[in-house]
């Protein structure tokens, strides 16, 4: 069967279950395509021969009742994988091989999937373009020298380029939804507490959440079903009844109330984003949903709040990288000198900048003015959503204020880079689920995404709306395989 890598996850599963394809054939196809695609720099660590061995083993005695039977997949290099190097895109973890497995990846292997390798990302997931990775930037398969978004940039590039049928990323301020939007794929950031954080390299613990990235909404729903679980190893994991998201997936969203927040009409928003949003509104109306204008008055304060809360938590989480127990160590004249050199040489510029911001806002004399203030504003932002959800079932916005930009275009101006996350950050601050679906192209032919934000724990409704819209939009990604010689 030709064109194995062009098949969606659902098609691959059907073909494996119908015995039209073996796991070995599927795995080899993705390995071959990945090997021809090194120019994209999507992988940090390849585990191809082990993957083919595992596929052969699967085929000897295939358990076809599993949800991901013999499906190969690569994952973001922020998930600890037992005996496979895990770097978080950083020099400081370049020699780190975990002796344990993250809960989310364990859930995936338990359902029969096979690890292909680890995907590039911004260092410690801090970035919006994958340019802060120690392993270099990633190419967007849409066009040469275009960023794939970040921080899950290797993940978005790999799914869009069909190097893996699906993947998982993490989202602290938009790191699943923004790269999904930049590469024309679907990305879901689940409700905080749905997916365990155990074994994920920590960035900002009150915001971090793992989530699926896929070519379509159905595949995304299936992967979400696999990774979402209660886990006693994560003290913020929430024990609630999880749906059978695929079985209950429906395009019937008649009568659903969709909110349009006026504050998301930001100054200087390109006309094509505005037009895309209008088109999105028409699509949901076509599906029989009702449009309601809403207000989220504190939207403009979300990014400044995020740039206090996230660095503060990061500075605390990253204190563990001291060169003592694991990771990179630089030689020093004494213990303190060793710490300072290790961290100065081991962390990249963006990570150091954020540790510095975080240390400053938590330091004596500034805590109330910055950190406490930000936590209070975070409460106001969450209250805005609580108020809105009295009137609506979900909220529709653009995913990003622009399409993908060129590599190097924003690296010298941190604030302009941060502005990329303007529509995604409020969702993390409020702990809500959000999904980005590809919805159109700009004049250059680059993909643009629309974001649907749901009520906490209401992923089913969110997926249903995305599913109904996807059918109306009928998006086709324009990928030419330019990187394959």
């Amino acid at each position, binding site marked *: 069967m030709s064109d194995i890598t062009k098949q969606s996850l659902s098609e691959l599963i059907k073909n494996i279950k119908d015995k039209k394809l073996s796991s070995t054939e599927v795995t080899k196809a993705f390995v071959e395509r990945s090997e021809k695609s090194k120019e994209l720099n999507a992988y940090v660590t390849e585990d191809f021969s082990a993957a083919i061995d595992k596929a052969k083993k699967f085929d000897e005695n295939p358990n076809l009742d599993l949800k991901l039977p013999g499906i190969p997949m690569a994952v973001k290099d922020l998930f600890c994988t037992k005996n496979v190097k895990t770097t978080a895109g950083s020099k400081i973890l370049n020699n780190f091989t975990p002796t344990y497995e993250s809960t989310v990846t364990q859930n995936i292997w338990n359902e029969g999937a096979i690890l292909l390798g680890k995907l590039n990302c911004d260092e410690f997931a801090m970035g919006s373009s994958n340019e802060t990775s120690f392993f270099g930037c990633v190419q967007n398969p849409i066009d040469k020298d275009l960023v794939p978004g970040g921080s899950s940039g290797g993940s978005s590039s790999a799914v869009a380029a069909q190097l893996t049928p699906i993947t998982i990323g993490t989202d602290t301020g938009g790191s699943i939804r923004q790269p999904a939007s930049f590469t024309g794929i679907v990305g879901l950031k689940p409700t905080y507490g749905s997916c365990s954080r155990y074994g994920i390299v920590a960035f900002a613990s009150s915001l971090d959440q793992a989530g699926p990235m896929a070519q379509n909404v159905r595949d995304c729903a299936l992967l979400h079903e696999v990774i979402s679980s209660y886990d006693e190893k994560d003290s913020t994991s929430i024990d609630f009844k999880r749906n059978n998201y695929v079985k209950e997936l429906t395009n019937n969203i008649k009568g659903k109330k969709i909110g349009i927040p006026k504050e998301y009409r930001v100054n200087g928003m390109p006309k094509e984003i505005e037009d895309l949003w209008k088109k999105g509104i028409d699509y949901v109306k076509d599906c029989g949903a009702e449009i309601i204008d809403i207000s989220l008055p504190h939207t403009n304060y979300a990014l400044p709040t995020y740039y206090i809360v996230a660095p503060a938590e990061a500075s605390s989480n990253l204190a563990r990288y001291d060169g003592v127990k694991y990771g990179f160590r630089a030689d020093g004249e004494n213990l303190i000198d060793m710490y300072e050199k290790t961290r100065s040489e081991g962390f990249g510029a963006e990570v150091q900048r954020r540790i510095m911001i975080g240390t400053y806002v938590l330091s004596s004399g500034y805590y109330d003015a910055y950190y*406490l203030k930000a936590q209070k504003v975070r409460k106001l932002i969450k209250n805005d959503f609580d108020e809105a959800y009295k009137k609506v079932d979900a909220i529709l916005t653009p995913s990003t204020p622009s399409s993908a930009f060129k590599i190097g275009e924003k690296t010298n101006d941190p604030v302009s880079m941060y502005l990329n996350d303007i529509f995604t950050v409020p969702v993390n601050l409020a702990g809500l689920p959000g999904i980005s679906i590809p919805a159109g192209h700009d004049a250059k032919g680059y993909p643009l995404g629309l974001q649907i934000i749901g009520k906490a724990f209401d992923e089913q409704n969110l997926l249903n709306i995305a599913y109904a819209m996807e059918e109306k939009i009928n998006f086709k990604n324009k990928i030419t395989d330019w990187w394959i010689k």
Partner: protein
Amino acid sequence: MSIDLKTIKHISKLSRISVDEKKAEKLAGDLNSIFEFIEKLNELKTDNVQPLTSVAETTLKLRDDEVKSKNIREQIIKNSPQENEDYFVVPKVIE
């Protein structure tokens, strides 16, 4: 508000990240533009607002205090940058 080089040196000490003059100047410039952006929060009056410390509105669960990982010494020291039998090795601390 402006973050000067003295403050940068102080934060670098607290964060245990060494910075030279050139790096300190670059960081001061970056941090000033970021804090200018953050200052927007001062437009809001928040005196009577309760800070949000967790979006998950649950109380922490209690569990029995029992050892679940036994005999994992080897796993723990496996990634140690400098091996020496069963210990983590650091530069000399006591003269």
